[in-house]
């Protein structure tokens, strides 16, 4: 089929994770409308652990479990998107895509808009009775002793594409592969075959460039004197212009901060990749070993040379389980012998908390994030004479009451510890681990339905 007549598809991304800025969408939507052609706005707000936390939220409240900042993300742009036929595709459904869809419908009503056609993607959740045997089989011995909170398969682009082809203006998903948020719209718009591996791979890498929001437009990039980024407080979020062959040019809205050049694009291209010959998604296996990146003009970069191979026969499943509690405590020392006092406090805490399991101690400002959990940096390094040091201690325990003892001991340093200690902060939070497994592709049924 000759598709060369089909106009370029513009896909903008307004969020790269749950916790991202919530004011990025407006300039992106303005740019999509100004460009005038078929356009889609995506929000990626579902990291691995985010979904498990959303499942816990849903257990506590059946109406909850979707992205908490859904309103803030959509309110500024919903009217314009509906008015100008900018489709919205997102995984902000998290553990409750139907609940998110209902909230969006209510939001539209609040804003005095006509009811949008909202499709919900389901099939990723494998916690039900119907999948019990499948999951047990997939986990095998890994399942031993696990207190499972959630199990979700990574769905691909097909159900999203089907929903758009059926007329959805807004598609709300739970767990899908991040690039599929872009591949779905591309599939629907260009009508590619579901086994057109090269085109799917190209659209996948376009989606990969978009999926972390500002990480491709100068975000998470600046390094003063070496990598300078203008306007970091008003970073423009990215837009991919995708052609009928899946090739893309990445750009950002005019008048926004940030930068797009070969270097910002390369950093995002390789982000979270392992073997560049085999980037596995539910839709395709992408190969970027021959990929090239070329600057076409100010803040316009083209990606080419991406190839694709047949998609995997299995789907990845993330299983989240309860692993216990993380306790942290911090206290600051400053001035002469600050480091010596911090080191002494660490020794006191080790003795007080003996028997609770491994305790990690960091001297923030001297040695912290590069060190590993098992190492004892102070034991193998002489006092550096630092005059502003924050001692941080942390441990993990299955029992929150035991974990909490760390917090209490750090607090007690106010009267029992070395001189001049101040600024105690403590935290105790539940930990969720993830285990991955795979299931045969045809044992999972990703599908859409329209909200009534």
């Amino acid at each position: 089929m000759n598709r060369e007549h089909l106009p370029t598809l513009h896909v903008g991304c307004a969020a790269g994770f749950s916790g991202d800025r919530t004011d990025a969408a407006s300039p992106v939507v303005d740019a999509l409308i100004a460009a005038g052609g078929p356009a889609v706005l995506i929000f990626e707000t579902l990291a691995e652990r985010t979904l498990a936390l959303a499942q816990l939220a849903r257990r506590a409240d059946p109406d909850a479990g979707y992205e908490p900042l859904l309103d803030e993300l959509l309110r500024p742009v919903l009217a314009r998107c509906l008015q100008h036929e900018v489709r919205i595709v997102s995984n902000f459904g998290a553990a409750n895509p139907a609940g998110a869809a209902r909230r969006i419908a209510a939001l539209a009503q609040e804003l005095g808009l006509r009811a949008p056609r909202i499709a919900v993607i389901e099939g990723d959740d494998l916690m039900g009775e119907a999948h019990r045997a499948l999951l047990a089989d997939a986990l095998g011995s890994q399942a031993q002793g696990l207190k499972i909170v959630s199990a979700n398969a990574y769905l691909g682009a097909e159900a999203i594409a089907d929903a758009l082809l059926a007329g959805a203006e807004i598609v709300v998903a739970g767990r899908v592969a991040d690039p599929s948020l872009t591949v779905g719209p591309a599939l629907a718009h260009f009508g590619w075959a579901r086994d057109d591996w090269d085109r799917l791979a190209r659209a996948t890498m376009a989606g990969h460039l978009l999926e972390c929001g500002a990480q491709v437009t100068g975000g998470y990039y600046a390094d003063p004197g070496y990598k300078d980024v203008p306007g970091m407080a008003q970073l423009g979020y990215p837009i991919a212009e995708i052609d009928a062959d899946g090739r893309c040019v990445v750009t950002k809205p005019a008048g926004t901060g940030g930068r797009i050049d070969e270097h910002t694009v390369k950093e995002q291209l390789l982000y979270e990749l392992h073997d560049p010959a085999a980037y596995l998604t539910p839709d395709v296996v992408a190969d970027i070993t021959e990929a090239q990146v070329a600057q076409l003009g100010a803040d316009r970069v083209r990606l080419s040379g991406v190839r694709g191979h047949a998609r995997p026969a299995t789907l990845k499943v993330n299983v989240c389980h309860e692993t216990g509690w993380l306790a942290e405590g911090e206290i600051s020392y400053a001035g002469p012998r600050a480091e010596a006092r911090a080191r002494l406090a660490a020794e006191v805490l080790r003795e007080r908390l003996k028997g609770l399991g491994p305790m990690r101690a960091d001297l923030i400002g001297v040695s912290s994030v590069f060190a590993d959990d098992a190492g004892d940096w102070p034991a193998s390094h002489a006092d550096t004479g630092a005059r502003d040091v924050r001692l941080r201690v942390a441990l993990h325990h299955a029992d929150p009451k035991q974990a909490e003892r760390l917090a209490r001991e750090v607090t007690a340093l106010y009267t029992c510890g070395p001189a001049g200690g101040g600024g105690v902060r403590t935290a105790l939070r539940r930990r969720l681990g993830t285990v991955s497994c795979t299931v045969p592709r045809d044992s999972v049924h990703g599908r859409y339905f329209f909200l009534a």
Partner: protein
Amino acid sequence: MPTTLTVPLYRAAHARTGDKGNRSNISLIAWHPRLWELLVEQVTEVVVARQFAHRRPSRVVRHLLPQLHAMNFVLDDVLDGGVNDALNLDSHGKALSFLLLDLSLEVPAELGDCLVGPSASPST
């Protein structure tokens, strides 16, 4: 006139870290195509494994992407279990890109103009 400059890697390349489970990937991207060959020669799996020795990686693999003048290092088991299990403040290991960039590099003087940042100090 010195024939070789000793410079930190961050003058020749930039990097970003990603994580998945207990595995860290660190990209390394040359600032200039002419620096590519010496990066390939000098920033090897063995050199990187040594730089990260205190994190005890079980494996370090380097993938080369010559068309991009970039390489991708994959370090297994360096994250104390990963984001959900480690006691590290930075349990993703996001700061580790700068541990890589702190490596020392020997750069022929004629490539000095490809380097980024303030002037290099020449080796004797």
